[in-house]
């Protein structure tokens, strides 16, 4: 009996170590062990690339690459002189680096559940706007437009972090939604 307890104990330690090591040493975004351990709390792997956050997070939140397919990122990155009405031009070497990064971490390359939902909703298309994907519209279909477009502290659905308080950590679940002027989201 004692040896069985010891065996079970050792197995438990080994399992914990395995997951711990996998989490610590593995790919820092789409890690299945981490995903399993934290269940649904991570919606999209937050961008872990400091260059991306610096170059693409000045005017808006640095969007997690898993929110769009690679083809979309390619389109966006090849049209930066007119980036939704703004000029977001980059040094060519930086542009190449960031395009490669975005494609490498795009929705179809992610194991996370929601990224796969994004892919199902876009199919073969390469939308330019995250907010126009069927998946996004479905997730936000209960939000009155006036809470966003008519709200000076939010303005657009593309300003995720105006309401999703944990967006920088890739968490978009309802528990962390506070809509300016309207309080916590409670459905």
């Amino acid at each position, binding site marked *: 009996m004692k040896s069985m307890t010891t065996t079970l104990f050792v197995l438990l330690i080994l399992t914990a170590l395995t997951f711990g090591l996998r989490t610590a040493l593995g790919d820092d975004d789409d890690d299945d062990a981490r995903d399993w351990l934290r269940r649904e709390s991570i919606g999209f792997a937050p961008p872990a690339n400091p260059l991306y956050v610096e170059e693409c997070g000045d005017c*808006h939140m640095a969007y997690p690459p898993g929110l769009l397919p690679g083809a979309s990122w390619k389109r966006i990155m090849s049209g930066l002189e007119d980036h939704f009405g*703004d*000029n977001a031009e980059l040094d060519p070497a930086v542009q190449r680096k960031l395009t490669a990064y975005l494609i490498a971490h795009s929705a179809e390359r992610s194991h996370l559940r929601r990224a796969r939902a994004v892919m199902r909703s876009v199919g073969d298309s390469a939308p330019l706007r995250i907010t126009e994907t069927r998946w996004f519209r479905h997730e936000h279909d209960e939000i009155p437009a006036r809470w966003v477009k008519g709200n000076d502290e939010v*303005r657009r659905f593309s300003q995720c972090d*105006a309401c999703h308080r944990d967006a920088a950590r890739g968490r978009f679940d309802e528990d962390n939604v506070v809509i300016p002027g309207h309080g916590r989201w409670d459905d």
Partner: protein
Amino acid sequence: MKTSFSIALLLLSLTAGTTSAGSTTAVDKLLQQYRNAGAGPFSAERGQRFWHDSVRTVDGRERRCTTCHTTDLRARGKHVRTGKAIAPMAPSMNPKRLQKAKKIEKWFRRNCKWTLGRPCTPQEKGDLLRYLESQ
């Protein structure tokens, strides 16, 4: 005692040229580049006029530097579309400004094109830098 004093003096003289208020290595580097392109001398006054007076109308809306940065360089600005806060331009309020040549050039490229519809000339950029560093 004498040796350490000499070393201290040497170190002091090396650092003295780099951190006086308003004048940074990045700005000096860029101004020299602009001079090499035939521009100069540079004027903060001209830079100020350029910053505040340049305007272009697109789809019935005016675009100026002050559209996002406001008329007060010490104040926080706001991105005209996204509403995202923009840190003050004045180095006296925001010591991170004007520290990196690449960053300065990046924003000149983007914002001159968006605001004016064309790149700023080396003369204009030099004048602007003289103006901004004085704030």
